[in-house]
């Protein structure tokens, strides 16, 4: 790392503070000892369903697969008093197919990963054009990736200018800024990137952990770093920023642990799908399976639940 980037990081850390890895991992381990039973469990599971961004991000995605994903999003399971998910999340080329499958008059939103996802390694104007195209095709939300190269080199202005340009390109669409935490190396830098992003996005826009395309995705640890950054930013500026952990959250138990973290860090106002989302696909069926278990007292075999997508 050049001394210039070092100085840039030092200045930023002096402003926003640092994170102790051992301490924060001890903190999040306590969430996993919480015991959620009965009505609280059902409520938590249903809440988690409403927060799912049901995702398929594969090279082999087809309009047919996206249509089936949308169907699952609208009606996750028969016979359960079960809410719809928050959104479907697809590649820009699939947005119009998703719009056709969902229709215009639906509460399920369409999110699209634009900006040369997952690497972001395309010229800015290509990335902005992709965002505009996705929005024009009917995307309600745009999931962008930050310029990690610029960030790690300490070129914060460049990174923030690009985010600001995407905000412009989004128009009315909600923006989610993917930090790709596994490429940021330390909790300190995850906190730093969170602050840099939050300073240029709008109230109600999201910061998001990962693309799901690298080895390490959402963990309770990096989720905690980011929601603490959101909390500090909110208390300082009054601007509420939303959060989306993505990738690696596959079980209902994990989802409840993330929600406990939200409840105890950000409080009640973040316990809804305008402020918190899960980027996931296999999570949904585990949530449904647990809801079915709470209702009937018995675990159903996994094949009783329709598969809509297999991605992260």
């Amino acid at each position, binding site marked *: 790392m050049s001394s210039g980037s070092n100085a840039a990081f030092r200045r930023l850390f002096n402003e926003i503070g640092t994170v102790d890895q051992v301490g*924060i991992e001890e903190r999040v381990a306590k969430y996993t000892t919480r015991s959620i039973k009965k009505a609280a469990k059902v409520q938590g599971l249903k809440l988690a369903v409403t927060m799912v961004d049901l995702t398929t991000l594969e090279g082999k995605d087809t309009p047919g697969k996206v249509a089936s994903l949308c169907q699952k999003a609208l009606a996750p399971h028969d016979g359960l008093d079960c809410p719809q998910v928050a959104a479907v999340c697809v590649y820009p080329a699939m947005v119009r197919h998703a719009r056709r499958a969902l229709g215009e008059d639906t509460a399920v939103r369409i999110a699209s990963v634009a900006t040369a996802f997952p690497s972001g390694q395309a010229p800015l104007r290509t990335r902005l054009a992709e965002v505009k195209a996705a929005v024009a095709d009917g995307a309600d939300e745009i999931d962008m990736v930050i310029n990690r190269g610029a960030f790690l080199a300490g070129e914060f202005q460049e990174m923030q200018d690009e985010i600001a340009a995407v905000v412009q390109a989004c128009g009315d669409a909600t923006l989610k800024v993917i930090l790709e935490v596994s490429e940021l190396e330390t909790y300190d830098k995850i906190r730093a990137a969170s602050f840099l992003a939050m300073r240029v996005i709008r109230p109600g826009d999201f910061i998001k952990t990962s693309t799901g395309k690298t080895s390490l995705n959402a963990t309770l640890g990096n989720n905690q770093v980011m929601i603490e950054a959101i909390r500090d930013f909110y208390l300082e500026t009054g601007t509420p920023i939303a959060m989306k952990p993505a990738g690696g959250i596959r079980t209902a138990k994990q989802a409840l642990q993330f929600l406990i973290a939200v409840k105890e860090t950000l409080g009640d106002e973040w316990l809804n799908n305008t402020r918190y989302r899960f980027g996931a696909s296999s999570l949904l069926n585990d949530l449904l399976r647990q809801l079915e278990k709470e209702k009937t007292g018995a675990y159903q075999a996994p094949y009783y639940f329709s598969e809509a997508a297999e991605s992260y």
Partner: protein
Amino acid sequence: MSILTSENKRPTKRSAGRPLPELIFGDLWEFDPAPETADPKLKPRYDLFIGGRFVAPVSGKYFDSINPANETKLAEIAQANAADVDAAYAAAQKGFAVWSKLPGKERAKYIYRLARLLQDRAREFAVAETMDGGKPIKESRDFDVPMAAAHFFYHAGWADKLEYVAPGRKVAPLGVVGQVIPWNFPLLMMAWKLAPALAMGNTIVIKPAETTSVTALKFAEIVQDAGFPAGVVNIVTGFGDTGAAVLNHPAAVKVAFTGSTEVGKIIMRSLAGTDKKMTMELGGKAANIVFDDAPLDQAVEGIVNGIFFNQGHVCCAGSRLLVHEPVAAAVLAKLKTRIRTLRVGDPLDKNTDIGAINSREQLTRIEKLVASGVKEGADMFQPACKLPTKGYYFRPTVFSGVSMSHRIAREEIFGPVLSVLTFRTLDEAVEKANNTAYGLSAGVWTDKGSRILKMSTELKAGVVWANTYNKFDPTSPFGGYKESGFGREGGRQGLLDYCKLV
């Protein structure tokens, strides 16, 4: 230095006149009760454990053990008098003749058995410990019981390696030791006392605290199951007079006491002029020192763990928070936010963070000291949590604007009450931290390694934790300076307090 820390440097995105943003920790998603349901297998009445058997007290008197969480009676406990204590010492002397002659590796087998049997019955003991003392089940389950087992494992490992305890010297057991333990960690303190004494080949007469005798007497069942020779471990229960009889008994060659400094002084007075060996682990008023470069959220977590662990009934609790002035406001704000999410209530609920105060007497003492804090002009903060209607509970409490002369900054409160003071320079922090009669523990929070090393040499405390708090390990000696006592428990140093060098 930080935009989070100084009011006037904050970015002014917030337009004037709008209310300050606040977090809402309400009941939108309330947790259902999640009680631990393991059977604690309590007997309605517990006798004394002398010579390997449960025997009724000579006086025939019993007293009630109360569950502080709901004020119901848990069990009747035998009240031992001087005659019972005599019998216990006689049994222990007989036991010593057998136990001290066993080779170390044979003694180790018995001690390993204690550890394993305790692990086998961990849930049962955790529930009993929580019902008896009021501590949250998550602490007795995740800390007290596993830690007690760890102490037996560790010292069992020493039993056949005693020739290496004091290089160049040989060691021999002392004889019969008398021990009195407190009510804050009943089972764990018992393990701290028994394990090194047993490993060295001593036999024991031990008295648990009157409010928390149940797990000690349940542990007597484990001593029986482990097949110990009669009289190696003897447990007598009762009040202060029983404790005095145990510590003053002429057959005790060494006494070990953990408890308040006040009682420790009385014991030392009464033992002056005898040739008994002594170790004392007494009170504390630890300083937890946060510098401006510390990661604040983790420091706050450590502050919370330092003072609210076990309702603050911890002799090494970080009850004085010393904050560097540049970050004082930020730390206090973060601390208040964090405290609002602590769950106070039924200790048996797995989600409870702060359980019941151990006894009405202790609750009264806490209330009195908190009232003095208010009267002396410190700012009190308590979260608006609901407390159960029955039982002894106290809200987590933070006093800010405390000065060194306030009673709440000097006296050990032994409850969930934190006093916050500030400092400007490292020297001032050291001076304030050391300006106390106690010296058991301290905490330092900073990113700078050199500062940690400097602080750890300047602070007069037996333990200095750096960027963490309340961490224990059987291999690490624990004990105090000044009026926090002398002698060490744990590690090689702890063993040396239970032997003579020959």
